[in-house]
């Protein structure tokens, strides 16, 4: 399986072509994906595209669900916090 880096808030993390962005972030020990309206840290809850808790900005596009996006080389992910 092809391995490469993606960048989360500018930091490179390991990823592969079969992993979702959420999986790559979890493997890198990142659990804070977005900040809720009341200021809480949030990460994936359902991991199947239902809950929208894992939403991040991917390659400049906001509100992408990290659990539904497959990693691609050089992908740039921004979390909200």
């Amino acid at each position, binding site marked *: 399986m092809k391995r490469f880096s993606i960048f989360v808030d500018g930091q490179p993390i390991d990823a*592969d072509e079969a992993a979702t962005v959420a999986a790559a972030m979890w493997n890198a020990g990142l659990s804070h994906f977005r900040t809720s*309206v009341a200021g809480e*840290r949030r*990460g*994936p*809850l359902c*991991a199947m595209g239902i*809950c929208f808790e894992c*939403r991040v900005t991917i390659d400049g596009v906001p509100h992408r669900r990290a659990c539904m996006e497959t990693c691609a080389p050089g992908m740039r992910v921004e979390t909200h916090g």
Partner: protein
Amino acid sequence: MADRLDAQIAVVGAGPAGIAAATRAAEAGSDVLVIDEAPGPGGQIWKHRRPEHAPRAARKWLERFVRSGARLVRGAQVIAATSDGELRAELPGAGGHMLDVRWGRLILATGARERFLPFPGWTLPNVIGVGAAQALLKAGVSFQGRRVAIAGSGPLLLPAAAALAAGGARVGLVAEQAPFPSVARFAGGLLRQPGKLLQAAMYRGRFAGTRYRTGTWITSARGDDRVREAVYTDGNRSRTVACDVLCCGYGLVPNLDLPMLLGCATSAGKVVVDERQQTSQDSIYCAGELTGIGGVDLALVEGEIAGLAAAGKSHGDRSLPARRSRQAEFAARLEAAFALRDELKSLARPDTIVCRCEDVILARLDPRWRRRQAKLYSRAGMGPCQGRVCGPALEFLFGWESDTVRVPVRPTPLAGLAHKEERADTT
């Protein structure tokens, strides 16, 4: 401009029910188009990181599906549909590009999602669902060395615990809220997979290296930047388990938004279908978890029946109704065995968040309201998940049933909603 496709039969959802329906209909000579939001077919249950890891039945069906000639649109999310033969889906990528499909018959097989119930600490990072843990495993997460607690309800707890343990997790708790007698009764009457796991767990009293506790539920989770420990009880005594990940899910609920949008009659949270899997709407069929949670075998047989019926070959296979009755019996036993206990209604405290999208706390909700009032007065259910997480919880806590479904059924760029002509002006 939106792409446009025509199909005699459109199928929404490429899990077991949708795959079986599409395969049978295409084999019967119909022109079939399947739309699914995932990058590949199989749904949540048959999705695998490496296709060769999928179970035999999955590989067999997926190969047969490919041979059947049915077309598959991947990564497309249906956002709107009308009962007179149109549906609109958002295609993958960031552009908000749309696909319009004209269909003659429609088979809905949109499956189910996990039911979550609010408890103090459930919004902490690394508190996830039980199905979520399996989804993350399949999506490439390594659980090696992570301390995991698994709780909630239903036969999914055990395969999840087994999969996590096999993936190197240190499983510190497996807790089923249903009491021992009802779980034992359920396990005793089963021959198939979840039954075997359950029987083994009950017989040994242990599972995946830890005790399988029935009549036990999580009362709170604590942590800082993520969950660190969970408190559980059997109603008499509370204990604490340290964990890096807490998986807590209370069974599954059908994804009713599309059937409701299309005016299909529902009852007790399920789509009502006749013996041919046809809904109250002519030309619209439902199969799988939409008609009641019954697992993969029931989903397959319902899909086969729906596919043949939509293709006008209702009597194409006379063995199917008997298979469906047997599996439906399993579904009824499942529902009875894992009924949720009343104690779970009082886990949330006044300051516990109930709607995670809008951070609405329990104290802001008035039990005398209906669901619609809750939306208007508190914003519960108004965020991007459109009530898919808090809805089933509010129904359990207050008896608030979901109200009408509106277009778009998923958040979508505004351009996707505009008519083609309007968009032609602006692009």
